[in-house]
């Protein structure tokens, strides 16, 4: 039998892991853009809040933040439902995990994007304004495509970290690839074998993402001249 009958469970777990990673990426990407805009804002209050967010979140382990947010949200939700006289709502690990990972890695993306925005030459933005583009057009046509070029190595790095961080969500109960392999290990007493399978699946995922990121890097560096070494 395929993986002693646990093949399907592990495949399903892998799919959950992948969904979790992609959803976290999407959330952290959006939070990162907002955070970068906040850090670059001329408003002292806005940039102060954004700086506090990126500094504090990056200074605390992701696992600690995850447990902090997961357990306290559940308790707060319980007191809210008690107060409203509703039935208890249990927070789902998938949503909680994606929200927490998105919130945490949003801080890392914010720093990546901030650096990339600053790397776009000012003259190009001035030229775009001189052409009569609205600020949205400047962002979409000039700033964003070039910012992505500078941000891509950082994004690649953050993505690999986020992908590996999804392994932690199994600690708060997500039925991901880790959970599936540990279940299989417990039932068959082949812990080493099944954990090795989990490791191989992660290695495959990171290897595939490496190739995708290399392709993206090529795409976004269209028109960049490189000096021959």
């Amino acid at each position, binding site marked *: 039998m395929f993986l002693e009958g646990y093949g399907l469970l592990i495949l399903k777990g892998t799919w959950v892991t992948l969904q979790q990673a992609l959803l976290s990426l999407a959330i952290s990407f959006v939070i990162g853009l907002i955070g970068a805009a906040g850090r670059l804002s001329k408003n002292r209050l806005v940039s102060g809040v954004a700086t506090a967010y990126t500094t*504090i979140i990056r*200074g*605390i*382990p*992701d*696992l*600690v*933040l995850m*447990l*902090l947010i997961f*357990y*306290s949200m*559940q*308790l707060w939700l319980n007191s809210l439902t008690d107060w409203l006289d509703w039935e208890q709502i249990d927070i789902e690990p998938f949503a909680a995990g994606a929200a927490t990972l998105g919130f945490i890695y949003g801080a890392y993306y914010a720093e990546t994007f901030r650096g990339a925005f600053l790397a776009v030459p000012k003259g190009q933005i001035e030229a775009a304004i001189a052409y009569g583009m609205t600020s949205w057009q400047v962002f979409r046509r000039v700033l964003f495509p070039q910012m992505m070029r500078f941000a891509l190595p950082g994004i690649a790095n953050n993505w690999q970290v986020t992908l*590996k*961080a*999804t*392994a*932690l969500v*199994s*600690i708060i109960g997500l039925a991901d690839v*880790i959970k599936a392999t*540990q279940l299989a*290990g417990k039932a068959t*007493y*082949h*812990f*080493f074998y099944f*954990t*090795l399978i*989990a*490791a191989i699946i*992660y*290695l495959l995922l*990171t*290897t595939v993402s490496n190739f995708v990121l290399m392709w993206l890097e090529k795409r976004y560096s269209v028109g960049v001249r490189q000096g021959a070494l």
Partner: protein
Amino acid sequence: MIEILETYWRAFLWTDGNGFSGLAVTMWLLIVSVGIGFFISIPLAVARVSPRRAIAGPVWVFTYVFRGTPLYVQLLLIYSGIYGLESVRAVDFLNAFFRSGFNCTLLAFTLNTCAYTTEMFAGSIKATYYGEIEAARAYGMNTFTLYRRIIIPGALRRALPAYSNEVILMLHATSLAFTATVPDILKVARDANAATYKSFQAFGIAALMYLAITFALIALFRRAEYKWLAYLRPTTA
């Protein structure tokens, strides 16, 4: 918050009554794994940049595997995986080593940080300015002396900013230790949470402690950079 601190402050800092716990254990895990990882990664980095495939290849495989899988999986593999093997439990020495969650955690952390540090130092060695190597050769240094006097000191200095990042990430990674029953800061926070149901306060204290250690490490590395990267600073009249 006050009640938790009154009951658990000793456990958070150094002892839970039975043995070391909290901050003391977290720092011990960090210092031992980063310390051993540092010394192993220097020869590995030198091997990694070797033009000979037979030497560079195995090191590449090691760093690729350990950087491509989550630390949690590595810890599970070493802690519950290896000890689950009959052949390991049959050998007295291995049985004694892998039975302890503390040993397994240290082994996993050391291998993990070693992989990341090796790649970092290898990149730094490769970035050595060719003129320095030519000059050293012209002075008649052999390869060992060249590495010892010129390449390694320069490469380690240049790697310092990236290395400080790795140490901080490793500090954050030590919070995984509780999954192998090691009583670090997060384990104490979980105990406090289970006993009081004050999740925000219990984990909040742990978060603040990690934040404080992170800032202390940043300050420490700033001083180190000021000292060892002094020659890169613009000179002032």
